């Protein structure tokens, strides 16, 4: 019998965490980018391709990443697989994005 690690219907689990969390900007970006890549003009990534991404990137990752982190990591995997960019190009873009954050850490007080 094949059963993916995401296929959890009926599993034992603790109490429902009845919490409301804000929808953060980066999480909206993740949804927006996926919608755009999957829209009628681009057709670059269906929802099922995205799902296949997080259903196959490993159980430890699936269990430890948050909902939107799973989605962006899966999206990146699929885009690299489709040769839209390479891991090295992504790493360079991440380094640039990080540099924009680090000079002035966010003020939280």
């Amino acid at each position, binding site marked *: 019998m094949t059963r993916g690690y995401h296929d959890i219907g009926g599993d034992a689990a603790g109490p429902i*965490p009845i*919490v409301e969390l804000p929808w953060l900007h980066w*999480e*909206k970006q993740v949804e*927006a980018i996926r919608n755009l890549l999957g829209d009628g003009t681009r057709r670059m990534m269906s929802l099922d391709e995205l799902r296949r991404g997080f259903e196959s990137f490993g159980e*430890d990752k699936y269990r430890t990443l948050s*909902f939107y982190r799973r989605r962006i990591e899966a999206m990146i995997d699929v885009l690299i697989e489709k040769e839209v*960019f390479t891991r090295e190009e992504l790493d360079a873009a991440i380094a640039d994005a990080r540099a924009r954050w680090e000079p002035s850490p966010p003020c939280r007080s």
Partner: protein
Amino acid sequence: MSGHDHTHDHDHDAHEPLVIEDEAGNIEGQILADALQTLLVERGLIAPGEVRREIERIESPGVHLGAKIVARAWVDDAYRERLLKDGKSAAAELGIGVGEAQLIVVENDAETHNLVCCTLCSCYPRSILGQPPAWYISKAYRARAVREPRAVLEEFGLAVPDDVRLLVHDSNADMRYLVLPRRPEGGEGLSEDQLAALVTRDCMIGVSVVAPVA
């Protein structure tokens, strides 16, 4: 699950009901999203400004759309029948576009209570209710709603009597589901807009019912 030891992973035990990013995780998420967006814009796959506009588009749907549909069904029997037959067309009558393939509206009555979940991921009628709440996408809700729905509902403060049939809808494929709650007692004199204001998101997922009007 036996056979190898996830020794490096014991901080995140298998029953973690909901993974929430801490501040560092959210910054990391923001950096990743910015990097991805920059690359896609550089490749010409996404135009500058397009992500911003798409965010505005996905931010606009919300509970008010579902509530409008419910209130119309409460005051107009013919509409209610069309809604139960074809949710997407009935929503379109009110100018509400359902982006998903089809909307199936399931009706609560004296004998039946409906509950919606998605065990495989987090399918949800986003185009009429907005983003799903955090608990809806939690492991605990996804795992338990199909097996012990009455216990789950009790955690939400809703006791479904044993003589009421409970229908649980696992939205696992192309359909999306909206619960049509029962019209509350005491609301006879209310306008359609006033009725719509009583309809909450949780009632349309099925973890709650519309409170009687005082």
